[in-house]
């Protein structure tokens, strides 16, 4: 994986929202790489900056949000150096996105087929309508929906089917990277599971990288090979997902999240929430933003923001960890 060229490179990225009371930094100094055919999970609570990051990568930020620092490169191309026209071609053919709400991502007055053709024909000038129709049928089969539903309107489909259509549209042009922003949050657990299975399968068949944004720890741990955890706009830990358990040393926030989820099949279920509440981005705590909620916080945590420590495929931002081996002092 290491000698592969990354599909997505985020370098020192900071994004701020312009508000009446000044700049509010939603994303701060973030670095992340995603390699071809890799599924990376991006976990965070509300306000952690995970969705802002997804929108920044797609260059979909609205007027009041600005990139204050850093770069986003997809296949080596800086997304923010593209002209408007180039961006329109680049988006969807190289990078695509699956949004959280399938209902509002689809146009209610257009049939499924029209919407898929729309994506295909506006990007592939060389494609005939007939070819596009064939491709649309292929895509429907890929996401396991009967092609007869090409003639259906979104409201005639169940929530799960709608989300499958959205996924079909996202992969229509064989993008190298698909960003999925909480694609299954609004769905029932059984439907969620079958869609995740589908995503995994299609990803292996077709081959593309996924940045999977979610607040659901156990779900991401199962799907992704690496997981990045965000807190207050910073990626505070990146870890292989098979190490996401309490036997490994983690950032205290990650550890807190792991302890906060009741285990389904354990003999004796205990849970432990993280004390306090997520911070106000307009008024971030000094030093490490997590220190007011951290059970291990010491004086230095209150004063100095921890540096990024990267070893191999792990990264951590915490004073408790030591440079050489990413071993915790606690």
């Amino acid at each position: 994986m290491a000698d592969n060229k990354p599909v997505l490179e985020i370098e020192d990225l900071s994004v701020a929202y312009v508000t009446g009371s000044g700049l509010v930094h939603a994303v701060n100094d973030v670095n992340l790489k995603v390699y071809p055919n890799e599924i990376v999970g991006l976990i965070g609570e509300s306000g952690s900056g995970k969705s802002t990051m997804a929108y920044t990568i797609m260059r979909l930020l609205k007027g009041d949000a600005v990139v204050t620092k850093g770069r986003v490169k997809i296949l080596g191309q800086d997304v923010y150096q593209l002209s408007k026209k180039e961006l329109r071609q680049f988006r969807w053919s190289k990078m695509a996105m699956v949004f959280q709400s399938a209902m509002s991502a689809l146009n209610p007055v257009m049939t499924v087929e029209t919407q898929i053709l729309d994506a295909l024909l506006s990007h592939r000038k060389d494609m005939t309508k007939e070819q596009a129709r064939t491709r649309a049928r292929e895509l429907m089969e890929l996401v396991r929906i009967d092609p007869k539903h090409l003639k259906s309107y979104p409201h005639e489909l169940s929530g799960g089917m709608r989300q499958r259509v959205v996924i079909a549209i996202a992969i229509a042009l064989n993008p190298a990277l698909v960003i999925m922003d909480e694609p299954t949050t609004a769905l029932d657990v059984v439907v969620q599971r079958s869609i995740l299975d589908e995503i995994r399968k299609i990803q292996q068949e077709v081959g593309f990288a996924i940045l999977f944004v979610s607040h659901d720890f156990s779900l991401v741990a199962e799907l992704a090979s690496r997981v990045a955890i965000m807190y207050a706009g910073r990626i505070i830990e990146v870890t292989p997902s098979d190490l996401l358990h309490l036997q490994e040393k983690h950032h205290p926030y990650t550890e807190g999240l792991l302890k906060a989820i009741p285990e389904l099949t354990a003999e004796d279920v205990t849970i432990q929430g993280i004390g306090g509440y997520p911070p106000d981005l307009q008024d971030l705590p000094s030093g490490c933003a997590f220190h007011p909620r951290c059970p291990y916080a010491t004086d230095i945590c209150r004063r100095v923001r921890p540096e990024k420590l990267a070893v191999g495929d792990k990264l951590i931002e915490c004073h408790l960890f030591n440079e050489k081996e990413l071993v915790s002092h606690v």
Partner: protein
Amino acid sequence: MSNATKTPATGTALLEVKDLVVHFPIGKGQFIRPVDRVSFSIGPGEVLSLVGESGSGKSTIGKALVRMIEPADGSILVGGRDVTHIRGREIKEYRKEAQMVFQDPFGSLNPTRSIEQHLAFPVRKYRTNKDVSVSEQIDELLTKVGLTPVAETRRKFPHELSGGQRQRVAIARALAVNPKFIVADEPISMLDVSIRAGVLKLMNDLRNDLNLAFLYITHDLASARYIGNRIMVLYGGKVMETAPSAELIKAPTHPYTRLLLTATPGTRHRGPLPETSNSAPNLLEGRKGCPFANRCPLVSEVCRNEEPPLREMSNGHAVACHHPA
């Protein structure tokens, strides 16, 4: 058949629901039945977790229990008193016993009222203890739900609170009338993961300290197991399986329960799900057979024609299936 799920000590049950039916007209003289002859009982200080997917009838049952909806058939007994068809003033009185906490803490609080106002209203209206001032009672409620320092919280407005804090206000408001039981309808599903545990633990403490009973409605088996003494699995308005929590997770016998367990993240299941389709259940009144038949991998002729009765397999573990595992 309704006898199967009774706890052994029915005499002490706080809440007894028998053959509850809720139906809604859908035009042309037809009805759907989101709740179809559901029976259960909850004792004081007991938590019953109601698990099911959207459309299973779990929220409708909750609303019927606090009498936001009037059941079409069956009975709800609270402390031996029949509240199935009470109206007007009686319903108001009944609110002292049964309260509800809703899923969305952003929609359930009034944005123009301070937290103090939110709590003063029910405290004043349902004064349970005249020796304690309204203000003292508000402080007490806020302390109980962990919203300290109280003086600061009282002055705040909902937009100044996080989702978890708002849900605590909603719980404090429910506690204001000193209820015997609370229907908690997905109280943590909209909260951040780090906050969920705190709210679940709060409910657990209230159960222990105040001997408060809960009907905990959720789609998440892990939290259902954590907080519930028992779990009841619903599908298409019918009880599929009910058992003590640990047993239901360890030894599920209904194909639908097993499907739910397989699909829950964290179980590391790979391979196809044990279902044959993902169609929604038929809720029409007068449907035949088992509501899960269309998705069930074990389906046989009898499942499509005869509704399986809820049968007790072992002590407290009952299942409605023609082919239980």
